[in-house]
């Protein structure tokens, strides 16, 4: 679900310097991961931020307005966190692509480089590279409080003098120093000051190569010329001919890129060491493990590490199932009450039916899952924010590797519990192509939040609500079982894919472990708000549209089939009470409708799984998006059960549904589990297939995904039904 984030703003803009005429200068935020870039971004833009895509690629782009003076509103763009200008994954590529290409629509007028003062050495590596590219920069010195706690004093004035750029002290968490930052940015916009010389000038070592490249490609900046030479294969803005030209320059000068890159990094670090010796007073005691490290010894412990992780997962499922229940019940009964009231107040007729049975039934099906989605994203955001998620990657790497995955696959897999679309997008941080492809292919097997409505309703139908061990309830455990089934099938599929897809590429796992932090509650809040909003809007619109279409299909039939069916019932069953008669009529009419015809058409295929034509309609309608299933069921059963059941909810309607062949309840455990298993495996989500297509840039992989998952779903549901019934 969560259909593709569309690029919401895309302005055609310039490649020239900022002039006072222009109303929207672009400010890019750049920095190492964990330097406080997103905190700063949230401080500057707050709730006005938008998520879109960078043009041409599917990397998440966050941008938002930042008023910098009375007439001017700048657009702040948050670039992905990187350690250097040499990218190691697709996500990081975008940073280099923008900063090396002044024609790029997101090329900044000023780049604000956010720097972690407690980790100045490595943060300055990236800073000096960006400054050398010729972008006007402002250095935002963040986390001075952390540095101070570690007995480091950073002198901002000396730093500014040594680097030749404006340096501003900020605290991105509290918002201190933002006024000074604004002033520095405005000054850089009006009269850009660039350092007098490059921090690292490649022409000192390979002067002729640089001069040649500058001449051939009309470049003014030595370091940019070097980037053309080293990175031209990755630069999307160069064409084939330009790339060949650069290849021949490399050959002509017998230039070795990796060697030069290594010596560049070492030279930069040497010069940075000089700067730091001048600007930083470091009185760090040498042998003192921080509390973060002590915590790591427990969280990465062979026994406690896994036990804690398992406990946290269990907690998440309890939260989703048990703690969200009261909120869901409240919404459920609210919608039912509204539906009943509307039916009483409004005159009878097709419009009222459309409003209540069609639209309101559909909307109710969406709203009721807000509490679960909010809880889920809240807890995942907490894990990400605190720094625990990267510990999970470390303890899971070895296990994941056995299955052809990577420690980094853990984040997509866990996010897959929320939604496969952002999860598949999150695989971009996996640098190895094969690991990434396998992760993409198996992630949709993780039970996403769209399956949750289906799980919830069916579990509540057939699993008793019982407490065991006084704390866990049986329904919660059943839910967890389904999630585990999804996880294990994902791992097994990954293992099979690992055997099929051979690759010589090396897999990497070098990663920084951030120190533990208290979660920033505004970030957590924003994440929850964003996910609920996109669920209600993006998924909601689809569900609503399908509910209405379905209502039409279920209310009208070909020719006068429906009238004939009604008359037939009234003739045949004269002795029934009014209520029974109305029910008979309603269900015969549904069967004769267009939707009924569709359902009957596929009934032979789904009969072995235990499903009837009504479930067939729901299956068909949920083919594009599985969350539609519940909405469809609501619509079908409220139409199919006459008009006298105002105020009942979908769960009660399902429970009272009778099997016409046996006379017993329709929803037996065998049928419910067969449906549950079907939805664990089935690839019923157009958005996910589209995401796979975009991320793999081929139609082959989404096709593979669709076929293997559908086959798995059919076979597993078939076995389940046959064994249980």
């Amino acid at each position, binding site marked *: 679900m969560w259909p593709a984030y569309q690029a919401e703003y895309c302005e055609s803009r310039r490649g020239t310097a900022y002039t006072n005429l222009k109303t929207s200068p672009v400010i890019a935020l750049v920095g190492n991961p964990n330097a406080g870039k997103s905190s700063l971004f949230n401080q500057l833009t707050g709730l006005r931020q938008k998520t879109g895509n960078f043009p041409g690629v599917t990397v998440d782009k966050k941008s938002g307005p930042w008023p910098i003076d009375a007439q001017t509103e700048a657009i702040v763009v948050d670039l992905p966190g990187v350690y250097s200008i040499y990218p190691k994954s697709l996500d990081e590529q975008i940073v280099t692509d923008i900063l090396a290409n002044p024609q790029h629509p997101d090329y900044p007028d000023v780049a604000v480089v956010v720097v972690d003062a407690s980790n100045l050495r490595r943060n300055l590596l990236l800073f000096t590279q960006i400054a050398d590219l010729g972008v006007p920069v402002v250095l935002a010195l963040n986390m001075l409080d952390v540095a101070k706690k570690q007995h480091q004093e950073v002198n901002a004035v000396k730093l500014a003098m040594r680097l030749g750029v404006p340096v501003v002290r900020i605290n991105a968490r509290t918002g201190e120093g933002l006024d000074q930052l604004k002033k520095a940015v405005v000054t850089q916009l009006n009269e850009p000051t660039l350092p007098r010389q490059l921090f690292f000038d490649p022409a000192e070592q390979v002067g002729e190569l640089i001069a040649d490249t500058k001449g051939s490609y009309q470049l003014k900046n030595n370091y940019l010329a070097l980037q053309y030479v080293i990175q031209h294969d990755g630069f999307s803005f160069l064409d084939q001919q330009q790339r060949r030209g650069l290849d021949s320059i490399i050959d002509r000068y017998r230039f070795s890129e990796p060697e030069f890159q290594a010596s560049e990094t070492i030279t930069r670090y040497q010069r940075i060491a000089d700067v730091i010796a001048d600007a930083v007073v470091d009185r760090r005691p040498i042998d003192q493990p921080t509390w973060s490290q002590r915590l790591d010894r427990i969280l990465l412990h062979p026994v406690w590490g896994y036990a804690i992780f398992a406990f946290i997962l269990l907690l998440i499922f309890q939260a989703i199932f048990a703690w969200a229940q009261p909120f869901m019940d409240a919404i459920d009964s609210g919608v039912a009450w509204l539906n009943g009231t509307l039916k009483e107040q409004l005159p009878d007729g097709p419009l009222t039916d459309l409003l209540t049975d069609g639209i309101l039934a559909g909307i109710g099906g969406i709203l009721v899952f807000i509490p679960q989605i909010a809880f889920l994203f809240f807890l995942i955001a907490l894990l990400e924010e605190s720094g625990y998620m990267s510990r999970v990657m470390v303890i899971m790497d070895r296990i994941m590797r056995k299955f052809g995955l990577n420690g980094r696959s853990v984040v997509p897999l866990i996010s897959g519990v929320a939604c496969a679309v952002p999860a598949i997008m999150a695989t971009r941080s996996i640098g190895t192509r094969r690991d990434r492809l396998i992760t993409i292919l198996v992630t949709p097997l993780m039970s996403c939040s769209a399956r949750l409505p289906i799980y919830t309703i069916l579990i509540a139908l057939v699993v008793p609500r019982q407490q065991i061990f006084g704390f866990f309830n049986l329904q919660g455990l059943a839910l967890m079982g389904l999630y585990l089934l999804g996880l294990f099938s994902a791992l097994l599929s990954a293992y099979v894919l690992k055997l099929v897809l051979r690759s010589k590429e090396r897999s*990497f796992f070098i990663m920084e472990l951030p120190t533990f932090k208290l979660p920033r509650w505004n970030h957590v809040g924003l994440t929850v708000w964003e996910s609920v909003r996109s669920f209600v809007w993006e998924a909601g619109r689809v569900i609503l549209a399908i509910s209405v279409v379905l209502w039409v299909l279920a209310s009208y039939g070909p020719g006068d089939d429906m009238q004939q069916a009604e008359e037939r019932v009234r003739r045949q069953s004269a002795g029934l009470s009014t209520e029974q008669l109305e029910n008979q009529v309603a269900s015969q009419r549904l069967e004769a409708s267009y939707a009924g015809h569709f359902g009957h058409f596929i009934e032979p295929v789904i009969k072995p799984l235990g499903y009837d034509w009504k479930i067939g309609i729901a299956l068909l309608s949920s083919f594009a998006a599985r969350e539609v299933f519940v909405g469809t069921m609501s619509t079908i059963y409220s139409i199919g059960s006459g008009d006298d059941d105002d105020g009942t909810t979908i769960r009660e309607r399902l429970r009272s549904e009778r099997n016409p062949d046996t006379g017993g309840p329709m929803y037996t455990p065998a049928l419910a589990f067969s449906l549950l298993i079907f939805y664990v495996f089935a690839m019923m989500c157009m958005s996910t297939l589209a995401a796979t297509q975009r991320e793999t840039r081929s139609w082959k992989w989404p096709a593979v995904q669709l076929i293997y998952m559908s086959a798995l779903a059919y076979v597993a549901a078939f076995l389940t039904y046959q064994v249980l019934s």
Partner: protein
Amino acid sequence: MSKRSVADLKIGERAIIRSFNDQLMSLKLLEMGCLPGAEVCIHCKAPLGDPICLNVSGYCLSMRRSEAATILIDN
């Protein structure tokens, strides 16, 4: 005598980085601050000793044993 690498260190043991034996890997490691002459210290290991976590220039990196084995240290 065979050269020792970071992968041979025990928890709590310190060493000075001398060189790398894998060019591609060394580019990544250099950028992350693993410089020749810098001091490293293993601060913990994941279950089964892989991946490992090491402290270098004031922060913590995690990497697989095979990756750590490309960082050679002074004996």
